[in-house]
């Protein structure tokens, strides 16, 4: 496979750089042993699952899940790291509808760990300094076509920004407040690397825009009406369950990493082989 044709290579590079920067410069509360254990765990579980489900071993998606867990998940003890990895990778194989997994593995693992009180996510850990560089990297991926499913990212960000700025306008807040909320590494990571997961989103553009709108709306409600943190994660995990329904409504075939363009514009001809 051509190295540049797979968006995951770009994602892995981007996430690795971010993790390196976060641990060195932003005091991310993730130790080198936790990083190693996370990356090792996801690959081991991915390998075992591939063997069990008789599929060829595919390391890239697991690597993205592992790097995302390193960036986001915080735990009291290293023993919980494999648990998160098991939820993330295991869910891809176990929870499937029509041969497609419906949850973004990282997102599901994070909400499960938070919900079970086994871990936490620090949305404020990014600060504002890294935001701009991160945004440039994300947008660079978009422009050069290295990002997967760009339409859902654009749609989600549009709906989310409308919600943020609209609310602030409605309640007479100065615009510095929604601007500050937008300058969040957590939002970028979510928009460019999580909600855009082509394997866990609807297969047609119309379906994806609808999906993005619902995720943004529900997250807005969770954050500004229920006043809960990590609203984006909870919303995505919940709304992902609607993906099979949206697919039924709008049709479309499953995504293939090796043919992103074909699948991005219309129904794919063949079901996906990889995870």
């Amino acid at each position: 496979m051509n190295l540049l044709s797979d968006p995951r290579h770009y994602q892995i590079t981007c996430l690795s750089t971010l993790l390196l920067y976060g641990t060195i410069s932003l005091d991310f509360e993730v130790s080198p042993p936790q990083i190693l254990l996370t990356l090792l765990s996801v690959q081991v579980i991915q390998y075992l699952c591939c063997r069990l489900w008789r599929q060829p071993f595919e390391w890239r998606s697991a690597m993205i899940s592992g790097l995302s867990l390193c960036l986001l998940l915080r735990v009291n003890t290293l023993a919980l790291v494999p648990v998160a990895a098991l939820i993330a990778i295991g869910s891809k194989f176990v929870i499937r509808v029509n041969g497609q997994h419906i949850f973004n593995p990282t997102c599901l693992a994070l909400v499960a760990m938070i919900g079970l009180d086994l871990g936490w996510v620090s949305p404020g850990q990014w600060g504002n300094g890294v935001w701009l560089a991160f945004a440039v990297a994300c947008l660079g991926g978009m422009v050069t076509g290295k990002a997967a499913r760009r339409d859902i990212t654009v749609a989600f960000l549009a709906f989310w920004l409308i919600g943020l700025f609209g609310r602030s306008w409605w309640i007479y807040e100065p615009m510095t407040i929604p601007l500050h909320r937008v300058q969040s590494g957590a939002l970028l990571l979510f928009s460019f690397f999580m909600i855009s997961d082509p394997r866990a989103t609807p297969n047609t553009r119309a379906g994806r825009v609808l999906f993005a709108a619902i995720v943004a709306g529900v997250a807005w409600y969770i954050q500004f009406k229920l006043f809960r943190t990590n609203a984006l994660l909870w919303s995505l995990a919940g709304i992902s369950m609607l993906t099979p329904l949206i697919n039924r409504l709008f049709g479309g075939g499953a995504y293939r990493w090796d043919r992103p363009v074909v699948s991005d514009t219309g129904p794919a001809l063949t079901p996906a082989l990889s995870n």
Partner: protein
Amino acid sequence: MSENPPPSLYARLLDASRRRTLMPIALLALGLGLAQQAWAFCGFYVAQASSSLFNESSQVVLARDGEQTTLTMANDYKGNLSEFSIVIPVPVPVKKTDVRVVDKGAIDRVDAYSAPRMAEYHDPDPCPEPAPRYPMSAGYASRPSAMMMDRSVMAEEKDEATGVRILDSYTVGEYDILILSAEDSGGLVVWLNREGYKMPERATPILQSYIAQKMTFFVAKVNLKEKRDSGSSFLRPLQVSYKSPKFMLPIRLGMLNAEETQDLFVYTLTKRGRVETTNYRTVKIPTDAEIPPWVSKEFSAFYTDMFSRLVERDGMSGVYTEYGWPLTIACDPCSADPITVTELQSLGVPWVTEQYGNYQQGGYLTRLHVRYDLDHFPEDLVFQETADQQTFQGRYVIRHPFNGDTSCSDGRTYEKQLAARQEKEAQTLGALTGWDMGAIRRRTPARANPVKPTPPPPPATPEFWRWE
């Protein structure tokens, strides 16, 4: 145990610098150079005439269990009591039974107990006779148990002209309290000014955003008669309990017209674990740093300069964790007397009871320190409780050199190691505080048996070169 324990060494040391840092808070002049003064966090002092207000520090205790929140606010107001008033936006109307005045001693204790501290050690004699008296434990420096140096109700009525509604009115301790709702911030400002609370026009847009969020306003003044009767010489902390999913602290009102930065200490008492801000970066302060022993006499300057440097490094965008530890009585030794069950309960922690000499059901104490201004902190602080049960304290280690005879072989080795250690301590101090390295080095006391710098040994010559 005295009812009002003396403040910790740290608190006393920091006091002077806080005074230097925070005095401007009292002079913030909320209202366009008028006499109004800002309280540093949720609300503000509103003075009626020019006065010598003096607000040294802002300390808030937030106890939270589920949605049940108890907010205790300490202030060091030293101005004319008749001019004191505060306005705080609260998520729900607060009833009289939910408002109390509490003993300042409880907050002082939490402050002293959680303050960054200095741990002090003495090097053992490197030339013992005949055997080492104090064998050095390998992990001694990381033990947290090091010797610490620290030690009625008015009927609801609405003012038609301004749209302000008095939801409740009562007196608690030395405070007269009103709970207000408003339809329009302009009307609220007019009403407050008419009633003698001088509210600057500039507060109008901020108040409007709280009104739009259906928040009510908790307004307090000092009841001079009750104050006289109480016999207390200072204003006691005011405590408000309410049930709300919002876990936040409104700080925007207090930043109006702020020309200087403000410091705020937030102590959270929660059931599950550490608390952090979700809309600002929460950073742990540097800890377990070994610094030169002479710093012990200047801990105040050291800590405040270190903190200022941190704030500068992060572009004033961080909230700093100074302490995070599961609540326990069994700290041995403690940096201050442990917080008693009675004190915890007075701060809104009803779930803690004592059994067998410890808390039956503990909780977690987090100490957050934030320096802020409107440019860098446009939003109110929003918190989340995490599952983090790990322990953290700001701790600075001082190791006093051995000052006896070090003329033996081990003693000379000790002197060499000491010289290297002292240089490292000096560099650590310089890196943390930004102090001049030359000045730091000059303050290192001379040794009685100084080590003569020895030239590095020549590289060992392998035997096979010799035959030549």
